[in-house]
């Protein structure tokens, strides 16, 4: 399977990946190096034979840690503002590098994106302020 990347053709590979749950699934993974710029994607690559090139399912590294890290970080960032709820939206890319299959924040354009939406319920906020003796704004 090939995809166009910055005008150059890049070949993805079909790899059997072992999820943290223990289930094995087949996924198309792109040989994109974490941290690589667009121009580096199709550049030189060392050619050892990693486990993912074999027939056995390969453990997916970093999947749980990536999700937990992003959600925890967002929650810590907005917690002092006490939103009634918040949504976090991000994408995870599954890429290959020497030594294994890696989960990384997917890039949209040239940078990884995390969208955060925090909401406050006006009634809940008013009752909370009233309990603290804070006057209601006009």
């Amino acid at each position, binding site marked *: 399977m090939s995809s166009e990347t910055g005008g150059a053709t890049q*070949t993805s590979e079909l790899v059997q990946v072992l999820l943290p749950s223990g289930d094995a699934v087949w996924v198309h993974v792109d*040989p994109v*190096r*974490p*941290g*690589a710029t667009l121009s*580096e994607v*199709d*550049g*030189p*690559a*060392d*050619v*050892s*034979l*990693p*486990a993912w*090139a*074999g*027939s056995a399912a390969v453990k997916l590294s970093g999947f749980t840690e990536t999700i937990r890290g992003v959600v925890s970080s967002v929650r810590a960032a907005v917690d002092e503002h006490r939103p009634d709820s918040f949504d976090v939206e991000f994408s995870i890319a599954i890429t290959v*590098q*020497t*030594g*294994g299959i890696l989960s990384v924040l997917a890039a949209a354009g040239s940078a990884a994106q995390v969208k955060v939406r925090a909401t406050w319920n006006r009634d809940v906020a008013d009752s909370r302020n009233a309990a603290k003796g804070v006057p209601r704004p006009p």
Partner: protein
Amino acid sequence: MSTFDVARELLTCCSARLDTGPDAAGTAFFVSPGYAVTAAHVAGGVIGSAVQLSEGTDCWSGQVVDVRPTTANRPTPGAPYPAPDLALIRISDGPEHSCALLRGELTLHSRVLVRGYTRRFPSDGPTAETERFKLSGDLETPCPGCTLLKLSSGEVARGMSGAPVLDLRAGAIVGMLRTSRLLDSDLGGWVVPAGVIRESWPEVAAAHDRFHEHDTRWRTKAAALAGGQLGDRGGSSAPAPLIGKARIGTMTLITGDVGTVTMHHHGEPELGAS
């Protein structure tokens, strides 16, 4: 025996599949009795790890005793390993083996043949694959004294890291393949010159020279290639004796500073009919 058969036999007698654990594999080749080299990135850039080599029914056990450089110098995960990207393996157990004849002189557009272990063909494990290339230039690296050779007009496949590169005219190993210039293309790859391998481990190079001084069978075999081009002649060469075998011995390894590597080659045996 065709020129291709001779070249393949030379490569086969010195190279082996390399397994470095559950995470990676590649190719290695014997350079002196009891010692083989591969790419540092195949060995994970770590000294001390146990490895297995295999070729046909022969199997060897060994240990990575030196890497140039170590992973501590690796700037970016996933980027090509820093130069020179070499690892030395000391064989601890296994049958006798032959040794590659290292020589570092190449001219532009020289034809070379590489033999590595890839997974191109679906099977339980890697299988041997050869590919012909043309020398198209060189590439200076930040590592002092280490200028890589650039190959073109051939495809470097995964698993060829650590594969020996045979000069089809001289019949000698001119370097070790380490990197593809672009996967899934015929743009070729990067080669660590034989001179850098020799200068990285002078004691191993000295043992290599002693081996080939006493055992002329590689040179006898290689003489069938002299002046020829792959595939354009064959059938006229009389079968040469079996390739030389070396006993696995012990050697004191004195590691040098890669910063002092030069491209000069000392005490190399001359090639030619003997």
